[in-house]
Every structure is written in C-alpha cells, then in structure tokens.
C-alpha cells in the first residue's frame, strides 16, 4: 500500500472504518464575526481551514490607513487588517489577493446584476470573489468553499434566490457551504456524503445578530469588529454620486483605479463639464490629495497650509477665478472680503485675489 501524505492520514482512529482524508475548506474571510464563526464551525468538525481576502480598493479602513490621522497612528488596532487578525485567531493561513483593477473594470463598472442602493454591485461582487475562490480551491486541493453569509441578512445578496444564483454563477453548485445558515439551505455535497455533520452547523437567518453573539461567546471569540455594512465605499451614497459623475464625464472605459483613489477624499465640486475641483476637508485629506495629485493643478490659500484644492480640468481665465473663489470659501479666511490664492500647475505658480464663494453657490455645485 502506498504511503499516505499527512493530509491523508486518518482521523477515524481505530474504529475500523476506512481512513478518511481530512476535509479542506477555503473560505472568504473578511475578518468580520460571521466569516470567523463560519470558519470555527468547520474547524470544530476537524476541517482544515484556509482563508482568502480580496483587496478591492473600496475598503474604508484601507483609506483611513492612507489618511494617516494621528488617532489612527497612535492606535493602529483601529486600522488593522481584520482578515489577518481573524486568520491569527483561527490559526489559519489567510491569503490576501489584490484584485483592484479587475474588480473595478469587470464588477463595479459593468455589473451584470445591477447595483444596490448606491453603487454596490453586491451580487456580482460575490460571484466574482467566489469564482476566484473556486479556482484557488482547485489549486490548493480544497474540497469546498465556504462563506459567512447568512440567509436573509442583507437585502440584495443574501435572500434565498440570490444565494442560489451566486452559487450557480460562481460554478460552485453543491460545493459552496454557508455554515451559519446551512440547516436552512439545501445540503451541499459534503453534507450529503456525511463528510460534514449538518446537524452541527447553524440555522441562522435574518438580520438579528443574537445567535452569532451566542456562538462567539461559546467559541470564546471576543475580539471582532462591529457589523461591517458600512465599510465599503460602494455602499456609500456620497461616494456613489461622485463615481456616477465620473462615469458620466469619462465613460466606463475612461475610469482608472487612480481616479477611484481621489473619489474617496474631500468635497467634490463640478464647476463645468470638464472642470472638477476636490477640496480637502482637513489637513490629512489635503496632504493625501497633494500626494496623489499626479499632474493635476493645485489651488491653496497663500498663507496657510489648510484646505488644498485639486483641479481636474482646464485652469485659465474664468475657471481660475471660480476655483480660487471656491478654495477661499473652504479656507480659514472665508469671512474676509478677498483672499490671496496660489494656483500651481506643472511647477508654475500664479497668485490672484479671490472673493470667497457664496455658500449656496458652492452647495449647488457639490457632487
């Protein structure tokens, strides 16, 4: 008889049953409580768990890291990568995969199943990630893919029909296990074959988190982030307005991931079909705008380091005056009759005096 690898060694012990290969599962691990619990439910049954976390470029925590605000620098736990933390707590390796470009092009800008209340393509997002996870599972010899999804928890992507659609379109029919809601869903292949004891999985449904908190207490899991519905920029209506504006101006093919970085920062104003200005709301945002300015022009009040305006579009004549007026409005000198402003493009500086813009005028142009 051929010698077996460690993975093939039996867990059945001396019961006389044929040895069983340890079941291996690859899960989408956000680091939130649900995916952590899903992993723990499987580990409890002896399943070898690995996690994957896709970095899409739309995570609000990642943006906070880039802003580097003092309170976050002093308390790095506030900006930690929760998927890595969950992997450490679970003692399970977590692979982080950067999918930003592909995700923007194929999911965010071209969702087959549409958007939620903002520009959140939740169903396409799940299909995209699970299709990638299926491929990774095949490469790693994982038997199943799992998620922390809960039936009925989210309106767009976690109702029964959506869960079935996601399973089918990701090519994981019968192989996608949702341990928290498993007993409320059709059994997967591994449950049918008795490789996983269905009775030891969850039957959680709906938006209440009381059952998850009970499970967390049972497993001794105390360190987990608050429910994460608000951590994705795509579900943020302010961000969605800016993204829609950008797509309307440039077309889908004209949107780049570098544009997405700027959409997350500051107040955005459209002053003309081809003229947009982004004004930092505080020093951290102005600093980040400056670092990501690329070849865009900047506008700043002459004697302060506060609000910086980043100008996307032509900057000459009347448009210079409008930009200067807007930036003066968001400076510490907004109450003055006129303010000296410096416009900078390609290393050349132009100084001009501007009258701070009227509040109503600015609000009308806010994207």
């Amino acid at each position, binding site marked *: 008889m051929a010698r077996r690898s460690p993975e093939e060694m039996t867990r059945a012990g001396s019961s006389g049953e044929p040895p069983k290969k340890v079941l291996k599962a690859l899960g989408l691990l956000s680091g939130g409580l649900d995916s952590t619990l899903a992993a723990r439910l499987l580990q409890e049954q002896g399943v070898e768990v690995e996690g994957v976390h896709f970095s899409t470029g739309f995570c609000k925590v990642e943006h906070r890291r880039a802003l580097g605000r003092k309170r976050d620098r002093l308390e*790095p736990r506030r*900006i*930690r*990568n929760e998927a890595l933390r969950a992997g*450490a707590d*679970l003692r399970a*390796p977590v692979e982080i995969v950067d999918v930003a470009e592909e995700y923007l092009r194929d999911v965010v800008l071209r969702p087959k199943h549409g958007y939620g209340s903002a520009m959140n393509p939740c169903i396409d997002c799940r299909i995209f990630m699970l299709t990638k996870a299926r491929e990774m599972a095949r490469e790693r010899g994982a038997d199943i893919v799992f998620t922390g999804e809960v039936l009925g928890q989210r309106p767009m992507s976690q109702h029964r029909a959506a869960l079935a659609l996601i399973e089918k379109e990701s090519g994981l029919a019968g192989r996608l296990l949702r341990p928290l809601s498993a007993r409320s869903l059709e059994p997967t292949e591994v449950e049918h074959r008795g490789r996983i004891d269905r009775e030891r999985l969850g039957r959680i449904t709906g938006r209440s988190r009381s059952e998850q908190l009970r499970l967390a207490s049972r497993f001794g899991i105390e360190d987990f982030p608050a429910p994460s519905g608000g951590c994705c920029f795509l579900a943020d209506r302010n961000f969605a307005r800016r993204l829609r504006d950008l797509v309307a101006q440039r077309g889908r093919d004209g949107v780049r991931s570098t544009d997405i970085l700027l959409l997350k920062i500051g107040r955005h104003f459209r002053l003309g079909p081809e003229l947009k200005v982004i004004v930092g709301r505080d020093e951290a945002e102005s600093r980040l705008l400056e670092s990501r300015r690329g070849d865009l022009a900047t506008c700043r009040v002459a004697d302060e380091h506060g609000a910086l305006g980043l100008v996307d579009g032509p900057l000459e004549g009347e448009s210079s005056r409008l930009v200067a007026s807007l930036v003066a409005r968001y400076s510490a000198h907004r109450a003055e009759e006129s303010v000296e402003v410096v416009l900078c493009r390609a290393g050349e500086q132009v100084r001009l005096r501007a009258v701070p813009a009227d509040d109503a005028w600015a609000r009308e142009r806010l994207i």
Partner: protein
Amino acid sequence: MRVEPTLKFGAGPKPTRIDTRGLYCPVPILRTRDRLRSLEPGAVLEVWADDPAILVDMPAFCRSHGHEYLGHETQEGAWLVALRKK
C-alpha cells in the same frame, strides 16, 4: 496602544530587507509574502514600513502563517519589523 521597540535578531546571517515605505497595508504584507517565497526556511526578513498598521498586521500575518515574529524598532521615522520564515 503604545508599542515599544522590541527587535532583537541575535547573531546570524545578514537579514534580507524590503522597503515598503509609502505603501499602505495590505501592500506591505503582499510584498512580504512575495519576498518570503524566495527565502529559505529560517531566513530573517526585515520589512521597513511607515504604515502604523504594520505593527498589528505583521504579527497577525506571522501567527496565521506560522512564521516567527521577531519584533520591531523605529528607524528614520518609520518602523522596521522582522520575521523568521517557518
């Protein structure tokens, strides 16, 4: 949470170092993972980073993947964290 320097590599071959300053997590972790692939087990890798999240993300990465986290120290306004490949 205030974190004090704890880095102590001890004697041994010169560690490999990567510079991820100016990059934000998870990029330093991705660079770490990529660099580790070409190192031998037991090799020490130093990661220079200015994203403070490195101080919590790198120990977590090491714990989940089985590498040994050796600690960190400050250097030129950034952090130098070190790990030993499993």
